[in-house]
């Protein structure tokens, strides 16, 4: 690069900037010695940090402290939830071998569930979603009713990571409660932007991770009801009520707790501010690239959509070309899709929502966060028309050669 372009980060759903307070807390903690499982003074001190963090996190999530099981992050929490519930429920009753999940789950759930099907004789039932990316309760209800006795667990994400569509978690719990089927929800994307009330929703298990809300990468939690049996993935020292062995990182959980606390404290102010930025972004895109299509639920707020995510299709363009061209100008966005061998694949979420292959490949996810500014949005809007024009030209070359 000959000139240094201002860096604009619009990928907060991938990971967001850390709260400086969380960094500070962690720095102090990293400089102290002590294993929270040790019995001596240093251990007691570390344990106090861990338990105070646990209490704060529980309070902020509407859960009891003993329900917070620390682990390495969202992927591990999801694996522990779905495999742990499946194994425990099936071992209590071998007939329970069916897992119900939605077609728009993150790979961190989709893959463990398909693994259970491939290796643990699980039968899986995929619940379809509507065009906005919201799970169809009628279909879920039908799937449960086909044989409620054989369902091991139901999992449905709280808010989708590509569209931001908020799922009817309470209603899912309602459907399951009649048959005492445990329900897990992946709340990784929701936790930074919605008030989560674990007890209030009646969920049995819920995944959160620190780095999506301004905490460190490498720590998260599975919030899981005390009464619920789950089989651990990791065996060892018996930490985290035997559900997750391994030394708990006091600095990590302290950073996690600080970040969650700040996030919740600022939510009433930052939510509307971020929503206003998203509105500026979406209106701006409609203005500068009139053919662009804004996807997902147009309405914001609980029951609709997260305030920070905008998902947009740019007809005739390839998402990865757009991404590359914006990146070259210092603007960082996501195609929202998973890569296989580094090759962008059309997202299973978009395909499940009824997108065609081209539209699925020609979309970008813009996600805002607590550090986003109007200048970030304006820089994107300034670059977008020329970038789209180039990407369209590249799309034409491609359709000629292939």
């Amino acid at each position, binding site marked *: 690069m000959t000139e240094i372009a201002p860096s604009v980060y619009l990928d907060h759903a991938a990971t967001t900037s850390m709260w400086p307070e969380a960094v500070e807390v962690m720095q102090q903690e990293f400089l102290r010695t002590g294993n929270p499982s040790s019995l001596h003074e240093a251990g007691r001190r570390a344990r106090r940090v861990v338990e105070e963090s646990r209490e704060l996190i529980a309070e902020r999530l509407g859960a009891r402290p003993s329900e917070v099981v620390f682990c390495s992050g969202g992927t591990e929490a999801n694996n522990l939830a779905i495999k742990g519930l499946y194994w425990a429920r099936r071992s209590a009753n071998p007939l329970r071998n069916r897992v119900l999940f939605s077609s728009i789950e993150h790979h961190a759930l989709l893959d463990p569930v398909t693994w259970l099907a491939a290796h643990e004789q699980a039968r899986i039932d995929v619940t379809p979603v509507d065009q906005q990316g919201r799970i169809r309760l009628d279909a879920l209800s039908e799937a449960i009713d086909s044989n409620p006795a054989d369902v091991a667990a139901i999992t449905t994400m709280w808010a989708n990571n590509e569209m931001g569509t908020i799922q009817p978690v309470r209603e899912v719990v309602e459907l399951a409660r009649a048959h005492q089927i445990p329900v897990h929800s992946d709340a990784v994307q929701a936790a930074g932007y919605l008030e989560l009330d674990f007890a209030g929703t009646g969920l049995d298990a819920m995944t959160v991770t620190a780095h999506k809300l301004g905490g460190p990468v490498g720590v998260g939690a599975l919030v899981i009801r005390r009464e619920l049996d789950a089989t651990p993935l990791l065996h060892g020292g018996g930490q985290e009520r035997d559900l997750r062995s391994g030394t708990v990182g006091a600095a990590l959980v302290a950073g996690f707790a600080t970040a969650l606390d700040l996030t919740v404290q600022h939510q009433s102010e930052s939510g509307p501010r971020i929503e206003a930025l998203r509105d500026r972004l979406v209106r701006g895109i409609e203005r500068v690239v009139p053919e662009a299509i804004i996807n997902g639920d147009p309405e914001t707020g609980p029951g609709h959509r997260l305030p920070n995510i905008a998902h947009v299709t740019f007809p005739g363009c390839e998402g990865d070309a757009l991404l590359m061209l914006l990146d070259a100008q210092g603007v960082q966005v996501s195609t929202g899709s998973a890569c296989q*061998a580094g090759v962008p694949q059309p997202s299973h979420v978009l395909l499940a929502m009824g997108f065609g292959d081209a539209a699925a490949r020609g979309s970008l996810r813009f996600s805002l966060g607590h550090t986003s500014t109007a200048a970030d949005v304006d820089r994107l809007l300034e670059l977008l028309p020329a970038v789209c024009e180039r990407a369209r030209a*590249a799309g034409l070359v491609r359709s000629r050669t292939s």
Partner: protein
Amino acid sequence: MRVIAAMSGGVDSAVAAARAVEAGHEVTGVHLALSRNPKSYRTGARGCCSIEDAGDARRAADAIGIPFFVWDMSDEFADEVVDDFIAEYTAGRTPNPCLRCNEKIKFAAVLDRALALGFDGVVTGHYARLVENDGVVEMHRAEDHGKDQSYVLGVLTQDQLRRSLFPLGDDPKTTVRAEAAQRGLQVANKPDSHDICFISDGDNAGWLEDKLGAQPGPIVDETGAEVGSHTGAFAFTIGQRRGLRLGVPADDGKPRYVLDIEPVTRTVTVGPRERLAISRIEAIKPLWCGEAPTTELDCTVQLRAHGSEHRARVTVDGDQVIVELHDPAEGIAPGQACVIYDRTRVVGSATIARTAWVEPVGSAN
């Protein structure tokens, strides 16, 4: 220039990208995903399409400090290179897929996409030299003749050459490896890749039989007498000696070679080595690096990858190129490229269509 560096994950393309950055170009690394079902790990010295190779390329780009992306060219590669490879063998010819890939993918589909995205050209780790002479970009053999890859680049036209950078053409491979190590590139000691990248075990005949099924036919000698059988004529190449598994030994007890492959009747003809000699080649579909020659050329030709040079008289007649060799050559297979050189300069290339024995022009002198 704003260029993309095609990065295979090997040492050459990594050093080429680093040199392009140092030369002041604005470089973006691109790894081409060519396989529809990439393997996780590289096996031996074959291929460049495993996920591990993509990771090596990414690591090199990070170390050089350039943006890096993977471009999925697997559909284009399947259509233009793999399908063509199968079709050529089916027709009894011996294709060169590397040449084809350069012609249709690296310096065509990839370059076109790069240009559309606002880049000016492509830099690769090929060993060849580009020299600008009087407004024309000439391609010459690399300084390191052992590594020279101008043969597989012989299909590039002037437009493509103007958009290309080959920063390694002046150096021997050992220098390039040493430089990679000095630059801290992890790929410095990675083995070179050989063979055909999409045939991971190197068993071309087995791969073709998987794709095409068994297509048995006879192996006959020059008199037409059946001396063996095969499960697919596509497994053979003109000049091949090994793997014939003939039931009937030759009268003179000498080894026999594949002389001809007739795809319709699937007849493979074998005979003594002397019969492999040819001295006249008709080649088609010429591609010229600059202007097409208008007069008879006294030049040299290379008739296969890593093959030797042959002195020749070349006459161009529209889409047909007649090559008369000074001295006979052996084992020249239709389908291979005849690349024409004026000393070290690549003039152009054409695909060998037919070969024949006539009194070589050299013997008349």
